[in-house]
């Protein structure tokens, strides 16, 4: 009949709006694959020149004095990234857990909203402002009070060897810790809140105090999620560029001393990208570092989210039971 054929025609007309939505949705995967392609493409020269030894090479000499080709190894940057991230986690994880517990369980109700607000303000400060404060305030502070104190008491350790200028892996670790506390504590807080009420109520019904409930029922249940928060914070710390570049001293070196200027992967890229001037392998090596950084951040992010999903699955199961 006339009507049904018109209806069939109308149903076959493409919905232009849906096409618009699909195109927009494609933007995300396209950006990811383009990013991998461009950065991978940029790294090829360095991969051909240095191969796998790039990742373990400990010499970073972009412009050798006698005109030889550059010798570039990523180990100083990787070492610095690992050490500064470790220091930041040692400092930030306990504090983040304390903040998360404060915000979710232990503070008086009336303080909850202000406490969320204040920690969010900490997260909203731009990285370069952290760097400015770090360079002009924290570095002198570390040099004059903390480093000298550490040298006086523990100066025999190779960790604290050398002149303390304030620029170095210790200061960078401190500033990274400050920057990841808001992120780490917010993930931990969400994870703690996600623990099913049945767990808490069962513990309280058995006569446990508030703290005993937290220690024996809430935290063990949330353990996977808290580890997830640490992994996610680790990824964030490894990728932080500006604040670290401004306080780490930017010298390619592998040394146990936390006081000597050093490098991290993002700060090498930030510091030296504009100095590559025609040196093809140098530029390509920086791209390869970018690829390494992308891989590290990707793995940490994925791992963290898998752990959170696993905990959410458990929480759902417990609630149903």
């Amino acid at each position, binding site marked *: 009949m006339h009507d049904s054929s018109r209806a069939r025609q109308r149903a076959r007309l493409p*919905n232009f*709006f*849906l096409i618009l*939505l699909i195109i*927009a*949705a494609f933007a*995300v*995967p396209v950006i*990811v694959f383009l*990013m991998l392609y*461009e*950065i991978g*493409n*940029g790294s090829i020269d360095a991969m051909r020149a240095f191969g796998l030894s790039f990742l373990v090479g400990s010499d970073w000499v972009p412009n050798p004095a006698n005109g030889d080709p550059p010798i570039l190894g990523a180990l100083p940057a990787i070492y610095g990234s690992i050490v500064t991230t470790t220091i930041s986690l040692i400092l930030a994880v306990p504090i*983040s857990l*304390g*903040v998360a517990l*404060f915000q979710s369980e*232990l*503070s008086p109700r009336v303080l909850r909203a202000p*406490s969320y*607000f204040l*920690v*969010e*303000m900490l997260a*909203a*400060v*731009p990285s*370069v*402002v952290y*760097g*400015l*404060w770090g*360079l*002009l*305030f924290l570095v002198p502070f570390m040099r004059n009070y903390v480093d000298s104190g550490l040298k006086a008491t523990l100066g025999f350790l190779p960790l604290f060897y050398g002149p303390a200028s304030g620029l170095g892996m210790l200061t960078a670790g401190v500033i990274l810790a*400050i920057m990841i*506390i*808001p992120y780490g*504590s917010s993930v931990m807080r969400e994870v703690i809140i996600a623990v099913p009420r049945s767990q808490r109520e069962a513990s309280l019904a058995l006569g446990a105090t508030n703290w005993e409930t*937290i220690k024996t029922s809430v935290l063990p249940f949330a353990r996977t999620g808290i580890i997830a928060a640490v992994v996610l914070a680790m990824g964030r710390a490894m*990728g932080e*560029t*500006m604040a670290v570049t*401004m306080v780490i001293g930017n010298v390619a070196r592998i040394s146990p001393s936390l006081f000597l200027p050093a490098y991290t992967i*993002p700060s090498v*890229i*930030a510091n030296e*990208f*504009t100095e590559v001037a025609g040196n093809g392998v140098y530029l390509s090596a*920086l*791209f390869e570092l*970018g690829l390494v*950084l*992308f891989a590290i*951040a*990707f793995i*940490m*992010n*994925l791992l963290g989210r898998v752990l959170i999903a696993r905990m959410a699955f458990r929480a759902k199961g417990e609630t149903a039971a």
Partner: protein
Amino acid sequence: MIYVALASFAFLLALVPLISILYATLLQGYAALSFDFFTKVTPPIGGTGGGILNAIEGSFVMVGIGSIIGVPIGVFAGAYLSEYPGKFAYYVRLLAEVLTGVPSIVTGIFVYELIVASQHRFSALAGGVALGFMMIPIVTISTNESLKLVSSSIREGSLALGISRSKTLIYVLLSTARSGVITGVALSIARVMGETAPLLFTALGSQFLMTGINDPASSLTLLIFDFATSPYENAHVFAWGAALVLLFMVLSLNMIVRAASRLKVTGTE
């Protein structure tokens, strides 16, 4: 009780840097503020006089370009994810979350290779595109989350009345989720306004006002970085002043957005 004390101590400890930064920026930056500061362009580093006009212009222009790219794509992508769930939507959402974790300097070298290397020039456009690429996943996820909160009865009621899916989305769903979407957009703007690394190799920085988006451009963040890392004392004061302006803009945007969304929640809606 001791644990309450420990947790409170941790919380206060976390606040110390915030207070220190606010205090230092206010104290040091105030000295740099003047009429000239807001009306002149940057002096050579170490020189006297001058202002941050070109940096403010660059920041606004590049965040603007980023928003033009990031907001429409992010909102539509987020809408797709919530209205047409399935395998594709699942992977897009996963990739969006991965993108938010990518360090911003990686985005910077990506856009360098994509635009700057092929165009053989640094430009505000490249900087804006880098910021836009950062905004897309953030806005996508926040729009998706806001739309997920709209109750299905509204969705189904609209469709039951015969309103097409696209009209339902635009006139009913997005308008119901309006405040959540706007919050997400505003927060992403505040976030990219404070970014430096993606602009280092795309916009490069400049001492002059822009004649067009294909010129290199400065931004408040690039200015702070260049002036703070220089050895000159008056450049440091300049950087504090710019940081004061930037911090004011970013923090007040954050506070307005959060206050407004809290009002909406407890209001008549």
